[in-house]
């Protein structure tokens, strides 16, 4: 009886008595969700264009952030570090295409998946070898002062991060919908053979999507790192992206964004209002529970292409 | 040109080119973009074509046939022909070669303008049979490269010749146009008669311009209207809306990209003046409903809720009557959320005047559009009257009338119920068919419409049937089968209806249920059925249809002219009427006589006092095999309503 009350009554009463606080939690959740969205976006891009589930996405975020922070620690100015780190991610994309995708083309999906696991371990080790295994604090000058907007407490840093993420998403959407190369990317995502028959070079497309995913990862890594410091745990963010993908669908860009926001808000609310009922640390598994429930009712995700087999 | 108002279309064209040279006159969607031509440009195009035709030997009085989909170039061919004192003869583009040969031959056509290879091929196929046909001009050169016949010319090359011709004789075009008189023949339109050969209706400029002008004034239409020219060019309605009235008022007529894109072109264009036969309005509604069924539930709920609001208050608002403030707010909200977006996707958001005519329109369908705020109205007219005889006035619109006679039109109903008219738009006669002319047009100017009708209490004309189908009940009162059948068919449950009564003591009916609608209805009530025959025989289904019949009877009772035609007995046929069995035409019109003969025992049963009828019929299965179907069908007696003594008072009370 007590447990039931703790799960169903107390949190609701708590929420009702303190609407401003709920709003703060929701906003905090949205801002955290933006990060999940960015990482999930990297997954979706690569999955759509090359059919590969990139296990290394999280490590790529870490690797990009490490490179960035390492360069800054060696006295490179912020913008220079960003450009160089982005270039490194493009280079990584070229290498991945050469050494992994090209030899494994036309293999089973599971083989490619294994390839990305290998890539994850390699990047992890290589990154620590080059830049060391310590926690690197990162400050790129975004103010972290709390702000009060309309009676609601908001972290200024979170606002900036959200704005950056939003503009990145907008730029990507424009890129995909409005440019010929975006059209080529969509074409490849739809049908490899047909894309080849109109002369779309698959390999260049792979390099481009892996580069884009790398740069998106870089941005995510910088934002995350500025908040918590650049450290190994960043790569675990990828684990949060998984439920986001289940929610949003593996092939949908808007799905990745909305899914990220839902997970962000959901787990913050759960932690704050239900945490005590379950003895805390709800945040770690809540997203998975949510995704599982979702899988039962809508296996293709919120925005995923409906699974229709046509004859 | 004289100082008086222009009395021919070419004169109107010149006037618009002078008064509003930069306003659009025609548009056509081509290569995905709306291309447009201003009045000045159209005048130049028409001049070039006229010059070319003249150089090729076209003389005053020559006929020029026009065959194809709605294209600006084909409309210009009409104007060019009229400018040279010739007579355009548009031909239905889906005519088979035989029908085309008849018209070409009968109208003594010397020149023809074909839209494309398809039409040109038809002309080539019949050229031998039409010795008078000398020259064929094609508009779209695609696929025509290997045609080497000397009488074939590209539209552009004819215009090129025309420009050279004009170079030598600058005043030619204006001079030729000035020779035209309002009393000259403007056009010959062949009507596809249901029986016998088509007849060529001869109309003068005076006929068309005076009628078109009167209707423009009646509706307050201006040179800013937009119309979509999408119905066959050989049909008088299309000619009036997209050519005659466009030239009278100076508004723009736009041609769709192709027959298949009409709906999306309509949406992009958003016409302000629109005509469509009832079946098109029906198709649009069906599409909307299907799409709503696929929509999410929030959207669907909103949609149905606000449609309900529209049904309740939409009509009074459109007719500018007093409506409670709260309803007004709701309707306004609905307009923002549902009606507006809906009208927008249908391309009807800018419509000021929309007409439907040609056949009866279901009252639900009609009020659906009106309740959304679309000013849909009915009119009455025909080729022989240059269209407009009656139009419904704003604020006096009813689903089952066609309005009052417009200015200068006189209508009277003869003893036998046939509608006759006198109008400045009345045709000159049928081309080379004085016999048919004499039958239709009396020497005193009255023209027989062949329609049966009467004026209702408000002085609006009501058309009930073709005069030849109208009979008499045993006691001599009027019996108009189609009028009653249409009323029955407006119910979704009833797919076909055949009523009997000519020479009989009362009216009785065969009904066909709509398998889809009634099947759905039955499923929701858990009524089991295995076949059409089983469903049709259910008592519950009989009850359902009896309700419909009783409502029709109440309607009929309210109209003195047909109050005695109430249905006393009906039965539901055990099989669907089928074109394969010869019971329907291919266009799904019932073949009354064949059905009566075939189901004679059932007709007899209806007029006996038996509670059921027996029948054995031969049917054709889908694979072509024949079989016999035996059935015993129940017959229902239906209570009739008392004829209303004062129909006018009844209307006020409701």
């Amino acid at each position, binding site marked *: 009886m007590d447990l039931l009350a703790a799960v169903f009554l107390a949190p609701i009463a708590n929420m009702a008595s303190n609407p401003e606080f709920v709003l703060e939690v929701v906003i905090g959740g949205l801002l955290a969700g933006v990060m999940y969205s960015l990482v999930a976006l990297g997954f979706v891009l690569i999955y759509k264009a090359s059919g590969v589930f990139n296990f290394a996405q999280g490590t790529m975020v870490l690797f990009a952030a490490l490179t960035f922070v390492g360069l800054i620690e060696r006295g490179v100015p912020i913008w220079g570090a960003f450009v160089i780190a982005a270039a490194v991610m493009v280079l990584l994309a070229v290498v991945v295409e050469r050494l992994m995708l090209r030899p494994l083309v036309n293999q089973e999906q599971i083989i490619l998946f294994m390839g990305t696991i290998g890539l994850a371990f390699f990047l992890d080790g290589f990154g620590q070898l080059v830049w060391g295994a310590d926690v690197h604090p990162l400050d790129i000058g975004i103010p972290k002062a709390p702000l009060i907007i309309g009676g609601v407490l908001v972290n200024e840093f979170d606002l900036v991060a959200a704005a950056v993420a939003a503009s990145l998403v907008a730029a990507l959407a424009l*890129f995909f919908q*409005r*440019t*010929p*190369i*975006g*059209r*080529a990317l*969509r*074409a490849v995502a*739809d*049908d490899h*053979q*047909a*894309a*080849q*028959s*109109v*002369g*779309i*070079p698959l390999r*260049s497309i792979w390099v*481009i999507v892996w580069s884009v995913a790398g740069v998106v990862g870089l941005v995510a890594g910088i934002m995350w790192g500025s908040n918590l410091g650049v450290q190994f745990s960043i790569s675990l963010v990828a684990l949060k992206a998984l439920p986001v993908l289940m929610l949003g669908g593996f092939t949908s860009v808007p799905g990745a964004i909305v899914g990220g926001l839902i997970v962000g808000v959901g787990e913050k609310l759960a932690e704050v209002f239900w945490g005590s009922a379950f003895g805390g640390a709800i945040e770690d598994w809540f997203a998975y529970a949510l995704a599982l429930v979702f899988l039962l009712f809508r296996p293709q995700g919120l925005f995923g*292409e409906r699974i229709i087999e*046509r004859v | 040109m004289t100082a008086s108002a222009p009395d021919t279309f070419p004169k109107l064209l010149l006037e618009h080119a002078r008064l509003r040279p930069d306003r659009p006159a025609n548009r056509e*969607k*081509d*290569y*995905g*973009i709306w291309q447009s031509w201003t009045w000045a440009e159209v005048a130049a195009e028409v001049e070039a074509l006229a010059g070319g035709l003249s150089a090729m030997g076209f003389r005053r009085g020559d006929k020029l046939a026009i065959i194809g989909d709605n294209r600006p170039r084909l409309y210009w061919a009409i104007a060019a022909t009229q400018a040279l004192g010739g007579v355009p003869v548009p031909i239905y583009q889906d005519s088979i070669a035989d029908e085309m040969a008849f018209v070409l031959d009968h109208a003594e056509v010397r020149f023809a303008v074909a839209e494309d290879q398809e039409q040109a091929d038809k002309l080539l196929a019949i050229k031998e049979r039409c010795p008078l046909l000398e020259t064929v001009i094609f508009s779209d050169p*695609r*696929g025509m*490269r*290997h045609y080497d016949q000397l009488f074939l010319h590209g539209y552009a090359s004819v215009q090129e010749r025309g420009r050279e011709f004009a170079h030598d004789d600058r005043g030619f075009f204006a001079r030729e146009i000035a020779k035209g008189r309002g009393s000259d023949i403007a056009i010959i339109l062949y009507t596809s008669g249901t029986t016998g050969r088509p007849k060529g209706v001869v109309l003068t400029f005076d006929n068309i311009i005076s009628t078109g002008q009167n209707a423009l004034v009646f509706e307050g239409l201006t040179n800013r209207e937009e119309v979509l020219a999408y119905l066959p060019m050989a049909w008088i309605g299309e000619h009036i809306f997209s050519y005659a009235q466009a030239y009278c008022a100076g508004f723009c007529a736009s041609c769709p*990209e*192709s027959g*298949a*894109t009409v709906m*999306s072109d309509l949406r992009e264009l958003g016409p302000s003046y629109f005509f469509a036969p009832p079946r098109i309005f029906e198709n649009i509604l069906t599409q909307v409903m299907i799409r709503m069924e696929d929509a999410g539930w929030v959207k669907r709920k909103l949609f149905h809720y606000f449609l309900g609001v529209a049904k309740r208050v939409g009509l009074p608002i459109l007719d500018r009557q007093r409506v409670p403030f709260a309803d007004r707010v709701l309707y306004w909200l609905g307009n923002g959320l549902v009606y507006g977006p809906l009208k927008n996707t249908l391309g009807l958001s800018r419509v000021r005047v929309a007409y439907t005519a040609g056949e009866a329109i279901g009252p639900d369908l009609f009020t659906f559009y009106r309740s959304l705020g679309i000013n849909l109205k009915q009119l009455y007219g025909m080729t022989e009257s240059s269209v407009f005889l009656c139009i419904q006035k704003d604020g006096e619109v009813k689903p089952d009338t066609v309005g009052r006679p417009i200015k200068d039109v006189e209508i009277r109903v003869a003893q036998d119920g046939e509608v006759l008219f006198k109008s400045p738009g009345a045709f000159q006669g049928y081309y080379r068919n004085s016999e048919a002319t004499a039958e239709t047009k009396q020497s005193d100017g009255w023209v027989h419409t062949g329609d049966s009708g009467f004026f209702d209490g408000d002085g609006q004309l009501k058309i009930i049937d073709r005069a030849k189908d109208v009979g008499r009940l045993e006691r001599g009162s009027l019996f108009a089968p189609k009028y009653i059948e249409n009323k029955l068919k407006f119910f979704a449950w009833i797919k076909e209806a055949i009523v009997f009564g000519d020479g009989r003591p009362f009216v009785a009916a065969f009904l066909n249920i709509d398998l889809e609608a009634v099947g759905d209805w039955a499923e929701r009530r858990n009524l089991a059925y295995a076949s059409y025959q089983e469903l049709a025989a259910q008592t519950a289904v009989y009850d359902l249809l009896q309700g419909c019949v009783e409502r029709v009877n109440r309607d009929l009772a309210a109209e003195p002219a047909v109050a005695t035609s109430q249905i006393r007995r009906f039965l539901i046929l055990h099989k669907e009427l089928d074109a394969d069995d010869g019971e329907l035409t291919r266009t799904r019109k019932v073949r009354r006589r064949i059905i009566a003969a075939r189901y004679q025992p059932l007709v007899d049963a209806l007029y006996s006092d038996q509670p059921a009828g027996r029948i054995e019929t031969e049917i054709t299965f889908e694979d072509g095999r024949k079989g016999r179907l035996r059935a015993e069908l129940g017959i229902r007696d239906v209570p009739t309503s008392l004829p209303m003594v004062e129909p006018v008072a009844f209307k006020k009370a409701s």
Partner: protein
Amino acid sequence: MKRIGEPILTVDAISLAFGGITALSGISLEIRRHEILAMIGPNGAGKTSMLNVINGFYYPQAGTITWKGETRRHMRPYQAAAQGIARTFQNVALFKGMTTLDNIMTGRLLLMRRNFLWQAIHFGPARQEELAHRTNVERIIDFLEIQAIRKIPVGRLPYGLQKRVELGRALAMEPELLLLDEPMAGMNVEEKEDMCRFILDINEEFGTTIALIEHDMGVVMDISDRVAVLDYGRKIADGPPAEVRISPEVIAAYLGQQADPHPPGDGMGGG
């Protein structure tokens, strides 16, 4: 009348095997400029494999391909597309989520002057160019009479229309050689007639060389200038339709496969 010219593509002694299965064994074939060549043969005869070799999807183990005077061991898909070879597929390979318009626009990708990366970062001049390509695509849409489905995602179209869109995408590449893999499969009579007309018009109006695979003998006899017959990875006949039709080897091949007493004329090769 059109003039059939010198060979534009020559495949010489091509052999192709997958594992132990031989798909093509020592086939030589010419495709001449401006002609319509039909490849026929029972299922599994190697017709589609031949197309895949020509446009670079398969690399043959032996033999050479000579395209416009240049001899190679094999083509690559990108190379084939860039040098004017376009194709359609037996089972329609369209970008299902994209509209008709976007699908056909992909056919223009290689003709866009500015390279990929430039387009990715620059909007101005690329816009201008996009417009020019759009005009071109609109002409194809007009030519194939598919205006009404311009903005509809192709996944929602009926099969016959999808085939037409696929043809449009190939045409947008302005190919010199058009490879059509069973362009009329699964169509009704009316759709087949339309497709025949389009193929003939493309051949006549643009002078495009066409190699097609087709099972409907009536169609093959009507529209092709030359017929090559393949059987078990070999070419057993090659010549004008009228000659091939009565060739004893061809009749034998079909008889052997189907035990059908009728000479090739109607419905052979199905199954």
